[in-house]
């Protein structure tokens, strides 16, 4: 458990945070620019000195009398730009932190991480200046991991990269997510990165934490700004159930039912994370007949909220746990006489697979 309590006045905003973050899985610090998410991360790393306290797994990193300098905090940090040392070779960059860890405390070996992040060929090239942006960032991630951190932090590691490099690096991040036993704090302002990688979501706005909770639960909340994004929607944690080779489809099963999606190249039983956007869900009060939409789920309305003058957001439960959001017009909402507790049918027009 990470318990952070910080106050720091800045010209643009005042960071005022008192929050607990899980010490496992991927926690996304998410918010618009200027919301304080990077500052919060820097405070946790000790790169910024705020007043307050910080406890990580019971250890005091900062309180009234203590301030552990960054070099004494067992963390790994990946900056927005790879920040490789230009005077060192790729390998010397990789081993910079590794060499500074007493051999008894090293939990990973260079060869392991090199293999993990596919750096074998890059190392041969020697000079970091010869690497592409995505390659440099992979080296930076490996370098951070080799310092055997107890907590890994990334500050918008993809935002300085072009789309191709992003696509190149995301699978490595997903792999870290699956295989890494240490917690990852991930700062981002891109919702699509967050939904792919995060387990826990912390929403920041003007220096304050306005919400913190499991990713799926938090994204399904209508009282948060995320619900009003154009790509607002929910996360469905599902398992590959079966493939339909004739129509090239795959059936995903989740706690509240199943969804047919385009063919997934993962064997049955594999966990997948899917996204259902609010704009792709419509509502029918009776079971639709003769519809081209194959994913129709029985649902129960749990909340309705107007969105602007013309739209309404409807939150529905599918089964006991899974939530769905639907963005419909206020007119439809009134015409259908939707109310909280009503049993309806959610028609899912499309499902975005994130893994």
């Amino acid at each position: 458990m990470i318990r952070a309590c910080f106050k720091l006045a800045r010209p643009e905003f005042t960071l005022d945070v008192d929050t607990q973050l899980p010490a496992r899985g991927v926690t996304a610090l998410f918010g618009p620019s200027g919301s304080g998410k990077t500052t919060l991360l820097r405070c946790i790393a000790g790169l910024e000195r705020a007043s307050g306290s910080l406890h990580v797994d019971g250890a005091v990193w900062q309180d009234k009398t203590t301030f552990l300098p960054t070099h004494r905090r067992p963390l790994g940090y990946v900056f927005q730009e790879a920040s490789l040392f230009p005077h060192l070779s790729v390998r010397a960059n990789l081993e910079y932190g590794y060499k500074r860890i007493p051999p008894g405390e090293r939990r990973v070996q260079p060869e392991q991480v090199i293999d993990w992040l596919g750096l074998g060929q890059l190392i041969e090239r020697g000079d970091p200046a010869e690497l592409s942006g995505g390659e440099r960032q992979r080296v930076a991630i490996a370098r951070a991991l080799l310092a055997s951190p107890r907590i890994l932090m990334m500050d918008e590691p993809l935002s300085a990269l072009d789309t191709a490099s992003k696509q190149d690096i995301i699978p490595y991040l997903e792999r870290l997510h699956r295989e890494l036993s240490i917690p990852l704090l991930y700062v981002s302002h891109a919702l699509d990165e967050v939904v792919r990688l995060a387990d826990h979501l912390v929403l920041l706005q003007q220096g304050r934490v306005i919400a913190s909770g499991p990713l799926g639960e938090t994204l399904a909340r209508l009282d948060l700004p995320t619900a009003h994004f154009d790509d607002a929607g929910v996360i469905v944690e599902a398992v590959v159930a079966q493939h339909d080779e004739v129509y090239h489809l795959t059936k995903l099963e989740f706690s509240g039912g199943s969804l047919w999606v385009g063919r997934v190249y993962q064997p049955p039983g594999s966990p997948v994370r899917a996204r259902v956007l609010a704009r792709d869900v419509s509502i029918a009060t009776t079971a639709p007949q003769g519809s081209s939409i194959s994913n129709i789920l029985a649902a129960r309305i749990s909340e309705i909220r107007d969105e602007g003058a013309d739209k309404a957001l409807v939150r529905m439960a599918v089964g006991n746990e899974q939530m769905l959001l639907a963005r419909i017009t206020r007119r439809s909402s009134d015409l259908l006489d939707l109310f909280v507790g009503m049993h309806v049918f959610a028609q899912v027009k499309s499902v975005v697979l994130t893994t």
Partner: protein
Amino acid sequence: MESAFSAADLSAIWLTFKLATVVTFILLLIGTPMAWWLARTPSGWKGAIGALVALPIVLPPTVIGFYLLVMMGPDGPIGHLTQSLGMGLLPFTFTGLVIASVFYSLPFVVQPLQNAFEAIPERAMETAATLRAKPLDTFFSVVLPLAKPGFLTAAVLGFAHTVGEFGVVLMIGGNIPGQTRVVAVQIYDHVEAMEYGSAHWLSAGMVLFSFVVLLLLYTFNPTGRRK
């Protein structure tokens, strides 16, 4: 060679070399923390200290020499100190010359170092800290290698500038063979004595030395390689 330089000339050359080496060494030692402070401090004193360090660039050497002479003299604060330490008085000694030269050449070492330090992004130091490097470790493993061109420039300029000083030496060191009679003073003596041939040899030697040093500096110093 024997016909070109007299024994007194060679003694002056050797003394100049010794002085410049000692001064450069001291300047790198004290100039590095000063330059680091000037490059990194948020303090409001930065401007004042920076101006103080730069004074020798604009002041006539005689002014610096005059004040140092007064301070090191029997009634000056430095003079009091050296006397109470049993070192006697510094003017007209090699030590006095070293101290004066350190002041005189200070900006030529501090400014290149300060520029080099300022060019190193804060991010490089932060990165090192997140990789467990203690501050001193960071200085030697990141700052020093990145500032290497700055150190080279500082050392060469500090050395060359000390070799070329005259006014301060005359004020503080006088003209004692083997003690304070450096090449610049020796040339002056030759001219005073109408020994133009000897003055030519030493002067041409100085021109050649300075040119070669600067040529090497400008040719081989890898500035601007960083991305």
